[in-house]
């Protein structure tokens, strides 16, 4: 008797048509060897299906990007990736800063500061993901509505931050609170990023504080007095100079 290995593989996958299933089962009824093999194969497939998905280690992707961008004597698209990343950050800043008209820094400078001024710059891969993530939800400056300044940060976690006059609690797709309304900073939720989710990223506090500087004093630094003590401690120490009102 020939044993229909290929059909058995598909049978175990559950991808056979009804007529093929019937013929395989007819064979199985007559062939104890194949019948036992199907049980074994099912057990194997099932065991493999239970292997957990493991997060990729930090830095694998950025190391690969760095290595791919290392000069090999020929220019490639990746040479432009850094510039593209900087442009993406500038675009994000523009999108998320509707009040930029009176900003002390030009948008380009603000963007450059975000990229080059950080001691631990965001990975290119992070920035490269920005354009697709950042979008202005409400075009009208100052009007109630959402300004979505979503980002995708390291470790494949998406973080989103919304500003809304009325304030709404927002969660990332994986359920992490990033911005919340409520508390002393109600309605300024763009400033209320939960540092537990982002404190390893210099990018976000800089962005938020850049923005905070451009607000009237009464309205600024929601993140520093938002009622989240850990945020106050961490960020006000690290970024206190940024939080000073500008001389202009």
């Amino acid at each position: 008797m020939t044993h229909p290995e290929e059909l058995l593989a598909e049978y175990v996958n559950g991808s056979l048509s009804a007529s093929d299933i019937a013929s395989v089962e007819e064979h199985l009824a007559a062939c104890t060897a194949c019948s036992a093999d199907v049980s074994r194969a099912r057990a194997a497939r099932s065991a493999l299906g239970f292997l957990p998905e493991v997060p990729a280690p930090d830095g694998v992707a950025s190391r690969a990007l760095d290595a791919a961008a290392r000069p090999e004597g020929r220019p490639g698209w990746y040479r432009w990736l850094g510039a593209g990343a900087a442009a993406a950050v500038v675009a994000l800043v523009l999108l998320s800063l509707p009040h930029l008209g009176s900003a002390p820094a030009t948008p380009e400078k603000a963007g450059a500061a975000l990229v080059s001024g950080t001691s631990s710059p965001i990975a290119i891969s992070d920035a490269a993901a920005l354009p697709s993530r950042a979008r202005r939800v409400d075009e009208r400056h100052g009007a109630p509505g959402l300004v979505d300044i979503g980002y995708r940060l390291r470790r494949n976690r998406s973080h989103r931050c919304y500003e809304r006059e009325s304030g709404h609690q927002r969660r990332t797709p994986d359920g992490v609170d990033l911005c919340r309304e409520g508390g002393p900073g109600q309605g300024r939720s763009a400033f209320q990023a939960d540092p537990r989710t982002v404190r390893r990223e210099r990018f976000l506090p800089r962005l938020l504080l850049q923005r905070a500087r451009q607000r009237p004093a009464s309205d600024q630094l929601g993140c520093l007095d938002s009622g989240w003590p850990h945020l106050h401690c961490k960020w006000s120490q690290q970024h206190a100079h940024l939080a000073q009102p500008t001389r202009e």
Partner: protein
Amino acid sequence: LVERHQTRVYNLALRMTGNPQDAADATQDAFIQALRKLSGFRGESAFTTWMHRVTVNACYDILRKRRRQPMLHVVSDDPDAPTHEPGPPEPDHADEVTGSLDAQEALRRVPEEFRAVLVLADVHDLPFQEIARILDIPVGTVKSRAHRGRLALAKAMGVDPSEREPHESANSSKDTP
């Protein structure tokens, strides 16, 4: 793009090599190759297929290297290195963790060509047609490697079907009413 693929690529490499350090190396190698040829791709699905292929090849390369330098096969002893394996079983899932460790260990005993098919088919749940494209082999070969690979894995895991009869799975038996 890299972020979208990195978990899948890393997990493929992890299951192929059975070692987090090798998996990270293979992932990095695969991305370097992929990114250098990125401009040649039209459409995400072609890229995904190819990404899988370069990952499998990167794993073969690393496994080959390891065979040549068995002494260098070091289990990570860097205390700062993130741990990628499931680690100590969590109380609620002790059985599952034990089972998965067995499956991972058993995978390493399956010949590489079969292992690649098994990981793609049963860990990543890709259809045979897609696996045939990834590995650039006929789909019939994929199916037969899947079947034989599963049997080899079951053997390495010590699965004894005689303990399981009659069929335990709902759609496995026509005798089940």
